[in-house]
């Protein structure tokens, strides 16, 4: 299974989720089953259905959070003044849409894993965030380019990155699992302070762009102060 058209394909499976989209006349009978348990069933009047990646910014419920927290599988230690460039892969949600040119008109939105949330910082002053852990799987995931500079005078260790969910863009290629997420630039400025800049990815030719802010691409990078602590245990 890959991103793209679903109709006239047999049952497709992504992890423990199975999807069927059977065309019967001009109506599509859509079913989503997880662990052999029916989760969603719909009759859809549309010429086609597409499976696309979707920014992990809505599930489990819309409006609960405005930020994402990525937990790296390995802790990073950066010495004073040094910079690290790395690519990480994080899980994304999946959407079923009828018009690939209008990906925000979703028919179904789901996640392969259980969509989890967390409090970033202390409960008394923290933010509710969508929790994402780096993954090794190719399907339903996207790569994020991280540019982390230790702008501070001392070495730091950290394993969590927080940024606004409204700045999440994904470029994906139909007919494959290939996708690219935003570029995140971090400048660590103090023991509990870092500036985060989120830039949309540069989509190569043939890729489609989908964003969490309904296609509105920001002209300026999104800036966020990780004042609740970026460091280990933050």
């Amino acid at each position, binding site marked *: 299974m890959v991103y793209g058209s679903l109709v006239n394909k047999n049952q497709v499976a992504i992890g423990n989720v199975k999807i069927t989209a059977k065309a019967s006349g001009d109506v599509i009978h859509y079913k989503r089953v997880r662990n052999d348990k029916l989760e969603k069933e719909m009759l859809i009047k549309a010429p086609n259905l597409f499976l696309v990646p979707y920014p992990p910014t809505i599930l489990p*419920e819309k409006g609960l959070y405005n930020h994402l927290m990525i937990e790296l599988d390995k802790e990073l230690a950066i010495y004073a003044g040094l910079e690290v460039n790395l690519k990480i892969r994080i899980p994304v949600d999946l959407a079923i849409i009828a018009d690939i040119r209008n990906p925000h008109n979703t028919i179904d939105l789901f996640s392969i894993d*259980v969509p989890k*949330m967390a*409090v970033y910082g202390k*409960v008394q002053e923290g933010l509710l965030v969508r*929790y994402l852990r780096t993954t090794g799987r190719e399907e339903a995931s996207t790569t994020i380019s991280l540019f982390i500079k230790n702008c501070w005078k001392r070495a730091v260790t950290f394993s969590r990155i927080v940024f606004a969910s409204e700045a999440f863009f994904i470029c994906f290629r139909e007919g494959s699992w290939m996708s690219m997420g935003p570029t995140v630039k971090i400048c660590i400025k103090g023991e509990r302070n870092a500036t985060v800049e989120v830039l949309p990815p540069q989509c190569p030719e043939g890729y489609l762009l989908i964003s969490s802010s309904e296609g509105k691409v920001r002209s300026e990078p999104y800036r966020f102060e990780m004042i609740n602590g970026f460091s280990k245990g933050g």
Partner: protein
Amino acid sequence: MNLESMIGTIRPVKLVISISLIVIFYLIARFFGRVLYNELRKRTPENVAKPLYNTIYYTIISIGIIAALETYGINLSSLLVAGGFAGIIVGFASQQVFSNVLSGFFLYVERPFSVGDPIEIEGAGISGVVSDITMLSTRILGWDGVTYRVPNGTLFGSNIKNLSSLVARRVEYLVSIGYGDDIEKAKEVIRNVIEEEPLALVYPSPEVFVEELGDSGVILKVRFWAPTSKWFEAKKKVLERIKVALDEAGIEIPFPQTTVWFRTPLRCLKENH
């Protein structure tokens, strides 16, 4: 003094002075009242600003009227004495009202909650969402769909739990398992249920630990955090799933049992039919 003699004593100069005094005090009341109201509106809600404005406005107007009457030599001491007595009576009668107004003011200053916050008043058995706060009372739309009007005096003297002041709220259960059951297995089953629930937060981390060795079983304490707005939903979903998961794992949830020991062996009588 009859009406004719009163009219006779009204002289044009005094009339002009008294009217001027009333007009001046009216303008002062209007000006200061408006300035005060505008300033109060920046800092306080309408239900606090408006009564304060009215109090200041009518006090200044009253002073103006008293000053105007004084120009005619009308002695207000008897009026003030009568007013004093009336004030004492009204004061006693409206003690509760003033207590509520004052409590409303202090509640406003302290701000233990705002309109839209879910709160619980300990001891009163009232819990719901604050729908309105006035000078005298606070309206709470209860979870049972009933609207409660709670006097501010009662609120001020009560312990108030604001259920929405933080982004997350902790859910806690006590789950009892049999003495013969594997504690580690039970803890793992419960942890898996929490992990599978989207509304159960990853951080702060959930906790499952032995709370007590009870009379009937080992009592485990289960703690996890959920978004404040989804606290009740998470609480009711997870407990049910824990029960199902423990049943599926073959872990017994014990009920109180008593072993009765007899000092002397029981004798059984056998009837012959």
